[in-house]
């Protein structure tokens, strides 16, 4: 365990990613404690620049504190990102493992489904889904999970397919181990690496997707996320750059941190690969 941690943290980019992400998580968790008034409270005149008294990040089009909005926005992004990814991973591992291990018709069916999701424009489908389910936090999470699970299933299926043919799995079958103990005890621990790496990338992607939805007005109308902060400030963009630039930077830093963590995990878990 510690060898892995050493390898991971030895890369400066992975270290930076981890630190940045940790900071964002802390901010997100601390937000309601530090800013008890919440992000919707109007604190002053609209469009005050950053540096104005009590407004380190300025105020938005309605006169709300940008800093508070950014902190609360982190909560939404992280919540949607993590929950939808967990859902996608859960579904993807389930279907991918069964298809990869048992093969046959089930596998053919899964392959057709994943190919279908690769071909169709999934963002448009997501828009349709969220619009029809009425925009909310739940519909965003469900929608994103539904369009992302096929790619996880594909990866898991590939891993199971190749691991199934490995001799140590055949040895387990010959020893009389049951299918269940082979799937969970022998194959899954060896298939974890790509799943872990892909998860962090997926959280990042989910955050980008959620912000795009909110930007288009398909986010939860009762919650303030970075995406709808940007969407709501479009008219003010030309005169008050901070209303759009700052939330965007937040998104970028969060997703970048997650991608760097993913890259670091990849290198740390596959030490044989040399860049």
């Amino acid at each position: 365990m510690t060898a892995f941690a050493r390898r991971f943290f030895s890369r400066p980019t992975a270290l930076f990613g981890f630190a940045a992400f940790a900071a964002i998580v802390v901010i997100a968790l601390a937000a309601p404690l530090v800013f008890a008034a919440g992000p919707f409270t109007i604190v002053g005149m609209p469009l005050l620049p950053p540096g104005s008294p009590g407004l380190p990040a300025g105020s938005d089009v309605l006169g709300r504190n940008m800093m508070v909005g950014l902190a609360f926005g982190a909560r939404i992004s992280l919540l949607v990102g993590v929950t939808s990814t967990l859902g996608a991973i859960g579904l993807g591992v389930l279907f991918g493992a069964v298809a990869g291990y048992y093969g046959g018709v089930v596998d053919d069916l899964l392959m057709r489904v994943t190919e279908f999701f690769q071909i169709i424009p999934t963002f448009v489908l997501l828009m349709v889904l969220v619009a029809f389910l009425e925009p909310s936090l739940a519909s965003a999470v469900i929608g994103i999970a539904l369009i992302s699970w096929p790619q996880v299933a594909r990866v898991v299926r590939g891993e199971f397919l190749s691991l199934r043919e490995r001799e140590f799995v055949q040895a387990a079958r010959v020893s009389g181990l049951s299918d269940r103990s082979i799937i969970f005890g022998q194959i899954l621990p060896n298939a974890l690496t790509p799943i872990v790496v892909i998860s962090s990338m997926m959280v990042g992607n989910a955050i980008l997707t959620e912000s795009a939805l909110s930007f288009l007005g398909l986010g939860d109308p009762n919650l303030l996320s970075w995406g709808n902060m940007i969407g709501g400030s479009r008219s003010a963009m030309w005169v008050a750059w901070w209303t759009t630039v700052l939330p965007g930077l937040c998104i970028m830093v969060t997703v970048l941190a997650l991608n760097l963590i993913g890259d670091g995990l990849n290198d740390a878990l596959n030490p044989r690969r040399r860049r």
Partner: protein
Amino acid sequence: MPLVQIKNLSVALPPGSDRALAVEDVNLDIGRNQIVCIVGESGSGKSLTAHAVMRLLPRGVAATGGSILFEGADLLKETPEAMRRRRGRDIAMIFQDPMAALNPVVAVGRQVAEQIRAHRAISESQALKQAADMLGQMGLKDVGSLLKAYPHQLSGGQRQRVMIAMALSLSPKLLIADEPTTALDVTTQAQILKLIKRIQTEREMSVLLITHDFGVVTDMADHVAVMRHGKVVESGATKAVLGSPSHSYTRALIAAVPKGESHLEPPPPSAPLVKVEGLTKRFRRGGLFFRTSTVTALDDIALTLRRGETLGIVGESGSGKSTLARCVIRLLDPDAGQVLLDGQDIAQAKEKTLRPLRRRIQMVFQDPFSSLNPRQTIGDILTAGPRAHGEDAREARARAADMLALVGLSGETMKRFPHEFSGGQRQRIGLARALMLKPDVLIADEPVSALDVTVQAQVLKLLDDVRRQMNLAMLFITHDMRVAAEICHRVMVMRHGRVVESGPTREIFANPASDYTKALLAAIPGRQAL
């Protein structure tokens, strides 16, 4: 003056490798019109030495000392452009796996023509004509359509002939062949080696041949150099080195090569334990929507196996020998036939009856690097099977320690992970795992093919000892007739899913009945000298 003089050559590995120098202070002469072999096991540095002569070392690996004189000029000091001009024209090289060594998306004729046009200013069509001529000289038929074929459409032997044709198209003075037959079938191997010998004689060319097989050395080499851990331990004329090897490693290497002679005592007589009848297995290619093509991997196979005896299944790739092993042990479901173990049929048994039967028949696998779960300790690997059959964990662990001692490993091993062990050690662990279930039948599927020759001999001896001690019935799958002779009482030769011939080992070797068996025996490297 010799054509090539390698003087004090050293090649360094990138930092973090298990040793600093891949090749250390190597001296070797290659004379004109002679075949020189470098022989050694994996990690000996033989391949990198050959690559150094072509200045084709991989990224991160570089020659750090010495010189390579080619007709007096030091190749290590040549400019990259000057070296490029030499490649293909003065010195040519062929590699181990011809499928990987040919560009998969370009037609074969064009690849040969590309070699010619690299150093001669002629048109594409002229080059293709010359290419066609070369291919014909290499013994390839139907050259016209061959020119337009892609590598994946050819057989392994054809591909290697294309590689050789390509290498020789500009009549280089030196041909470097890096394990050119290791990836080929036994019968094809013999043909390719014969081809190399023929063209060497015809063109009075020099050949540097890298191999791990002393049998190949015997057949091919005028001079031989033995390498180990990057150093040359012994070199000289082949007859001299073979006849009176001076270094202990050379002696060990020569002794480890199976001679193809059977010295086994016949097993004690007993009733058949395993009876296979009418075993058939077909594979269908294609999925949901397409028409499928069927391959008959096994066609009505029958065999018997007794306690205390080893039956060898010998065949080339595609013969069905591995499929047979997997059907007998029910890793694959046969389409027809019976596999009777003490009267009970494994082949068609349902899951419930099968599970208790599984204990009695176990397997040792081929690839030491994938036959052990990388994430489990050796102790867990050894006890997994017994525990699945209801044995108490502590008892199983105690037995596992004993089993490790039996295969020559210490009890310390239990806590470690597979990656900490060498190939030979992993095969021993695999054997211990199989024996933990106290089987009556042991199937060994090419258990030594992936091992170095010296390690191979040890593992074979271990298998034979275990068989005798535990009175096991052993089914031994191999492509190497020499190995079969070492360890098998009886031998069954397979080809294209059918049994060609079977009988006692000595009989088959002395009086092979079928032409195919004769060809297999004739193809054994070093047979002539024995």
